[in-house]
C-alpha cells in the first residue's frame, strides 16, 4: 500500500458556485487534517470551473486539484468515477470525503469498490481515533433509529459521505493561501456509458427548504392537496417554506421535491411546525437539526411529541385555522 497522506474532499458545484455541501466538507475535512497534522485538499470536477479553486482555499483547502473538461459538464457515473480514481491514485490521500447528495451517493460506493476499499454513507460525525489514527465514521442506520460507528482498518483511502448540514462551514478567509493544481481528465469518451438527455427542475416556488429559517411541514393526516393550501397560508404569514413527509408526496398531494427526511431534504430551521405527522425516524432524520420543533397532532402518543419543544394535541382542522388567525394578529402587532 502506498503511503496515504492527507484529507481530500470532493467538492460539488451548483450553478457556477461552490455548493453548500462543499464548504461543509471543507470545514469537516479541515478539522480532521489538523488533528492528523496533514494537508487538506479539494477536488473540483466540472467544465468551466474558473475561480472556484481560490474560493475553496478561502474556505479551508491547502491545495485544490482542478479537473476541467467539457466531458465533465454533467455528472455521469463512469466519467466521475474514472476521474476520482485517477486523482486518488496520483495524490494517495488517507481520507476522502464527499457529500451525501445525488452525486456523492452514486460516486462514493463505486469509487470505493474500484479502489478495493470501503465507503461509509451518510455520516453525521467523523473523528480520529487517538490510538489507531483511523477515521471513526458514525452514520445513521435503521432509518435514524440508531447510529453505527465504523472503521476501515486495512485499506486506503478511508471514504465517507457526509450528510448535508452535519458540519458547519467556516467563515470565508480571503487571505488564506493555497496551491491550485490542474489534473488532466484523460477521459476516453467511449468509456462513458450513460448520456444525460434532459434535466428537469421541479423546484417548488418561494424559499428553498434547505435555506428556510421557518418551515411548516404537513403529514399524512393532512389528507389532501387542499389541506396543504392551508399550510401555505400559514407559511406565507411566517415567511416560511412548506415541507411534507413522504406520504403526501407519494400520494401526489404535493411535489416530491417537498419531502423532508432520510431520502428527502435535510433541513435545520429555527422553527419547524409539524402538522399531522407522526414523527417517524426516517422523517426526523431530515429535520432533527431544527432548533425548535412545534407539533400539532391529534394523537397524544405520537412520537413527534418526543421530539417537539411545544405541542398541541388536537385535530389540525380546528387547531390550524385558530393558530394561523392568532399568528396574524400577533404579527400585525
Amino acid at each position, binding site marked *: 500500500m502506498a503511503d496515504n497522506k492527507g484529507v481530500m474532499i470532493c467538492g460539488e458545484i451548483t450553478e457556477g458556485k461552490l455548493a453548500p455541501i462543499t464548504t461543509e466538507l471543507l470545514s469537516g475535512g479541515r478539522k480532521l487534517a489538523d488533528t492528523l497534522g496533514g494537508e487538506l485538499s479539494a477536488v473540483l470536477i466540472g467544465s468551466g470551473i474558473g475561480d472556484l479553486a481560490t474560493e475553496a482555499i478561502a474556505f479551508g483547502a491547502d491545495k485544490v486539484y482542478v479537473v476541467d473538461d467539457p466531458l465533465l459538464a454533467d455528472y455521469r457515473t463512469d466519467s466521475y468515477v474514472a476521474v476520482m480514481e485517477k486523482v486518488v491514485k496520483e495524490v494517495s490521500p488517507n481520507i476522502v470525503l464527499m457529500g451525501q*447528495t445525488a452525486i456523492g451517493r452514486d460516486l462514493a460506493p*463505486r469509487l470505493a469498490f474500484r479502489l478495493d476499499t*470501503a465507503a461509509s454513507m451518510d455520516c453525521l460525525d467523523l473523528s480520529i481515533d487517538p490510538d489507531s489514527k483511523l477515521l471513526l465514521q458514525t452514520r445513521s442506520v435503521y432509518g435514524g*433509529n440508531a*447510529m453505527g460507528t465504523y472503521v476501515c482498518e486495512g485499506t486506503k483511502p478511508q471514504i465517507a459521505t457526509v450528510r448535508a448540514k452535519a458540519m458547519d462551514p467556516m467563515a470565508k478567509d480571503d487571505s488564506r493561501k493555497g496551491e491550485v493544481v490542474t489534473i488532466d481528465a484523460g477521459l476516453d469518451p467511449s468509456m462513458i456509458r450513460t448520456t444525460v438527455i434532459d434535466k428537469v427542475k421541479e*423546484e417548488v416556488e418561494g424559499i428553498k427548504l434547505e435555506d428556510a429559517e421557518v418551515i411548516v411541514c404537513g403529514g399524512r393526516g393532512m389528507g389532501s392537496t387542499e389541506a396543504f393550501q392551508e399550510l401555505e397560508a400559514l407559511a406565507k404569514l411566517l415567511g416560511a417554506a412548506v415541507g411534507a413527509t413522504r406520504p403526501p408526496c407519494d400520494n401526489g398531494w404535493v411535489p416530491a421535491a417537498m419531502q423532508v427526511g432520510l431520502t428527502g431534504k435535510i433541513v435545520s430551521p429555527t422553527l419547524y411546525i409539524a402538522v399531522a405527522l407522526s414523527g417517524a425516524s426516517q422523517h426526523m432524520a431530515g429535520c432533527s437539526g431544527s432548533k425548535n420543533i412545534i407539533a400539532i397532532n391529534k394523537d397524544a402518543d405520537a412520537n413527534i411529541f418526543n421530539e417537539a*419543544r411545544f*405541542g398541541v394535541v388536537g385535530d389540525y382542522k380546528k387547531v390550524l385555522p385558530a*393558530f394561523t388567525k392568532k399568528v396574524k394578529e*400577533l404579527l400585525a402587532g
Partner: protein
Amino acid sequence: MPNMIVCVKQIADPEAPAGSFRVDESANQVVPAPGVSQVVSPFDEQAVEAALRIKDAHGGTITAISLGKNFVMDVIKKPLSMGGDELVLLQDPAFEGADSRSTAYALAMAIKKVGEYDVIFCGRQAADWDAGQVGSGIAEFLGIPSVTVAKKVEFVDGKVKVERITSDGYEVIEVSTPALITISNELGEPRYPKLKGIMAAAKKEVPTWTAQDIGADASQLGTAGARIKLLKVFQPVKEGKCEIIEGESPEEAAANLALKLREAKLL
C-alpha cells in the same frame, strides 16, 4: 425480450413504531422487537415493480435473488406472487458478517450463474442499514454501468431510459445494456399480489445456492471480504421534554400556542 434480475432483501418492518426499536449495545446488535413482522425491504419491492412494468410492456423474464438467512417463505416469495418468474435464495454461513462489498460480490457471482441479463434492479438502499451501496457494488463487480435512485425506467430501442432523482428535480439518462438501476419510492406503489400469483408462488420450488454453487472465492465473502468494520451500534439519547399547550377548546389551545411562541421569541 429483456431478461431482468431483481435483488431483494428480507428485513424487519422499517416502519414499525419508533418506540419498539432497541439496540443491544454490549452485543453491537439490533434487537428485533417482538411482533415486528418481516417484510421485503420497501425499495426492493419497488424494484420488482419497475421490472414488472417493463415486463408488462415488452415481455421478458424476471429472476429475483435474495441473500440472507432465516427466510420467511411467505415474505420472500413476494416478488413471485407479484408476477416475477424465478426466485433464488443465497444462504450460507460463509456469507455472514458481510459488508456492502462482500454482499455485492456474492450477488454478482449469483447473477453470473443466472447467466443472461439485460437489466438488474435493486432498491436504492436496504431500509435496515440504509447504506445504499450494494447496487453500485454489483455493477462494479460485473463491469456494467449503473444509474442510481431512479423513479422511472423504460426500454427504448434496446437502451434503457431512466429518470434519476436529483436535489432539484430529475435528469433523464440513457444507458446501454446490460445495466444496473436502483429504484426509489417516487416510482410509485408496488402492485398488490393477486390471489392467482400467491397460489402459484406458494407452489413454486425455490432453489438455495451456497458459496460453492456460485463459484465464489471464499476470501471475498462475508467477514473475509469485508473492507469495513462496525465498531458499535447505539441509540441516540432523546430529551423528550415537550410542553403541551392546553386550552378550553382546540381553538384556544391553538391561540395559546401562538402566544407561547411569541413569548419564546419564535414569532
